[in-house]
């Protein structure tokens, strides 16, 4: 019991430390003055300098330990067993998703998720199989960060958590709640809890192997690619896949909205402000950001 409390306290301290350090990182250089540095330009990521450091640390840990272990897991453990592990963990996460649906007032989805858990537990050998999906009870995961977002809490600045990766202030807090009811809390013995946590982490990482390989190939800057991707995805999830739509900016040679007018002088139009900003980019000027390659 005390050990469990200690573990939670440690997680909390880790998160709080990250928050605090993140906060310090902005204050330290110029006492609240805007940083002259390359990263000051982005309002969604005021702690970029600090975040990039944690990101580099996470990448190193991933490269040295987590990725090789996940690759080994994928090689050694047969697909069928991995699917089973995924189903059991997923069935447990579904319980928390149901709670979050209900907390957000989405009774219909909440009941669906409840039915999923019942079906898979009773007819799916305790969650090992996933007959619910076959029956059309689609999994729609929700975490507490999404619930907080639904309640109107803005995501706050982007935050890279040590070991845990991309997050935001809101989702960091959400994660703290999520971990209180994670599958790793089920076993009685402390060692088993760490075992379950390790399995969760490795399993998740193994699922992402294809994705991270793809990111390696297509990102010009992994840090900004993952940051913008993470923030966009979380926003989308908070809106259940239907965020308010904004037009995509176009930078043609013509005057805005008028395709029949003659082309303007390209050089003169360089600093022209488009009339309609796209989502997530409205406040982000295309400012120079030199020396950000890692």
């Amino acid at each position: 019991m005390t050990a469990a409390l200690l573990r939670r306290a440690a997680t909390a301290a880790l998160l709080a430390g990250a928050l605090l350090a993140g906060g310090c990182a902005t204050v330290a250089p110029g006492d609240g003055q805007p940083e002259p540095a390359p990263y000051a330009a982005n309002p969604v990521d005021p702690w970029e300098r600090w975040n990039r450091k944690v990101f580099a640390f996470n990448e190193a840990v991933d490269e040295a330990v987590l990725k090789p272990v996940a690759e080994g897991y994928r090689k050694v453990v047969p697909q069928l067993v991995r699917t089973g592990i995924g189903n059991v963990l997923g069935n447990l996460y579904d319980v928390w998703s149901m709670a979050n649906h209900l907390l957000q007032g989405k009774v219909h989805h909440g009941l669906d998720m409840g039915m999923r858990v019942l079906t898979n537990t009773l007819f799916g050998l305790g969650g090992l199989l996933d007959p619910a999906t076959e029956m059309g009870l689609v999994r729609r995961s929700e975490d507490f960060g999404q619930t907080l977002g639904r309640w109107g809490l803005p995501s706050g600045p982007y935050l890279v958590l040590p070991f845990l990766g991309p997050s935001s202030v809101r989702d960091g807090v959400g994660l703290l709640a999520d971990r209180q009811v994670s599958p790793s809390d089920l076993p009685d013995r402390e060692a088993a809890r760490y075992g379950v946590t390790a399995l969760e982490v490795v399993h998740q990482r193994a699922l992402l192997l294809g994705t991270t390989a793809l990111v390696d190939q297509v990102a010009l800057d992994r840090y900004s690619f993952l940051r913008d991707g993470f923030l966009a995805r979380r926003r989308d999830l908070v809106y259940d896949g239907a965020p308010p739509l904004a037009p995509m900016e176009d930078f043609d040679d013509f005057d805005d909205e008028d395709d029949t007018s003659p082309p303007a002088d390209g050089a003169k139009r360089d600093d022209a402000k488009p009339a309609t900003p796209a989502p997530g980019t409205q406040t982000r000027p295309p400012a120079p950001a030199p020396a950000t390659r890692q």
Partner: protein
Amino acid sequence: MLKRLFTVLAMLATLVLPLGTAYAEGTPDALVRRISVDVIDTAKTDKAIQAGDLNRILALVEDKVMPYVNFEVVTRSAVGPQWRGASAEQRTKLQTEFKTLLVRVYAGALSELGDQKVEITRTQPVPGSSQVVVQSEVRGKGEPIKLDYRLDKAGESWKIIDVNVGGLWLVQNYRTQFAQEIGRGGIDGLINTLVERNKNAGKS
């Protein structure tokens, strides 16, 4: 006489062809439905694709999807205001390299899909523009994956200008990275980075 016939035919062609394409393309969701059914059906029957042959998937995307993409709009949207100052040659290069990169992203995402079904959920006009977003869900074993298409009219027909995978608009997501590269080395710096990126990705 023959010349006259040609003129008449040419006139007819200019009159009929745009109508013809407009009719064939129909509504944006019909276009998206046709493309996704086409792509998924081919992916299901093609042994090489099922074995994860990325070159085959690239060919499939090039074949079935690219003709319906307005790549100039895509490129200049990702490049941002600097596009207006770029020379014709720079623009062509940007377009070629970005296309190579995007086809790889889309093909990579496609190769992650297994035995799936695409369901078009709804079509929404984007307020304050002529754009339309067609939303779809890819359903398979796990959680459904959101796959949305943003389209705009190019002349008479609808063309895709952005794709959203799992909440992420692919083209728009490149703008910040492009701005970083342009800030560092101008348009040519961005072109060089893209060329390098494509070379390296081709190797692995």
